[in-house]
């Protein structure tokens, strides 16, 4: 598998900036060993923690329930980001500044931690009932469009129930219909997001094939219901 370097789209906050030379020194020390390596790890963790705190505080402005756990989430995210950066150090190709590249890991891990935190006190339903979401909301513009939507939703519901394996159905309904974050499902199953993405991909392909075999085209509904 080819490791892909995160694309640096977000610059670190000013407080985390160090010079390009310092970046190179930090990277060299991280790739080395001994006391210099340990100091570099501590410096990287401090950088990631600043990034995580920044991201968590930003999220807290929209989600008051996060405020009580700000520091806990930031620390956890920085720890996870540090582990991820160190594990992927060899994949850094120098296409961006090292600290910018590392900062992306903090953003990702903070997003994951925030999603998990949102589900901390919620139980994933034992019996997924996400299929209830597949009902006609009357969004189609015309009576003909509404009939088409009803037919398609009914076919999708039937295809989910008949064309997917039990586990494909479980994952698809949880993530796409019940809205359970994929990180949360992965954590509870003791697996990885990648494994679940693969299952979702297979399930969606199977559904598309099933709908096509019935002469239905989901894109037609998109065109009808889009204003």
């Amino acid at each position, binding site marked *: 598998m080819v490791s892909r370097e995160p694309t640096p789209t977000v610059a670190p906050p000013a407080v985390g900036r160090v010079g390009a030379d310092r970046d190179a020194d930090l990277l060299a020390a991280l790739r080395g060993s001994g006391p210099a390596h340990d100091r570099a790890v501590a410096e990287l963790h401090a950088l990631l923690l600043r990034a995580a705190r920044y991201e968590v505080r930003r999220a807290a402005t929209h989600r008051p329930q996060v405020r009580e756990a700000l520091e806990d989430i930031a620390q956890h995210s920085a720890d*996870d980001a540090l582990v991820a950066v160190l594990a992927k150090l060899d994949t850094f190709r120098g296409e961006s500044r090292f600290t910018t590249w590392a900062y992306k890991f903090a953003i990702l891990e903070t997003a994951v931690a925030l999603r998990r935190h949102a589900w*901390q006190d919620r*139980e994933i339903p*034992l019996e997924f009932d996400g299929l209830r979401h597949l009902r006609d909301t009357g969004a189609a513009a015309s009576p003909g469009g509404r009939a088409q939507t009803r037919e398609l939703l009914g076919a999708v519901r039937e295809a989910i129930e008949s064309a997917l394996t039990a586990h494909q159905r479980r*994952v698809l309904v949880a993530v796409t219909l019940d809205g359970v974050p994929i990180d*949360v499902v992965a*954590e*509870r199953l*003791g697996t990885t997001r990648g494994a679940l993405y693969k299952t979702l991909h297979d399930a969606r392909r199977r559904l598309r094939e099933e709908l096509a075999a019935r002469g239905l085209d989901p894109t037609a509904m998109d065109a009808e219901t889009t204003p």
Partner: protein
Amino acid sequence: MSFRPTAAGRSGTPAAVERWRRAQLLEAGFDAQLARRLAEDGRWDLHRLLELVDRGCPPALAARILAPLEVDPQRW
């Protein structure tokens, strides 16, 4: 610096997660005793277990196939 999971890094209490994992296994046809053991042991990847069962693998065999290396296969 600590790498232990904190409350913020978890998406549910251990009891709730274990209950949920056990329910998934029971629904997939695992017997109650095996479901309980696998649910409480985070070393098992339930996703892969359930995929194997989906493909027709008997639950007990799936558990043996995916048992961590340090687990004695004779127990499964």
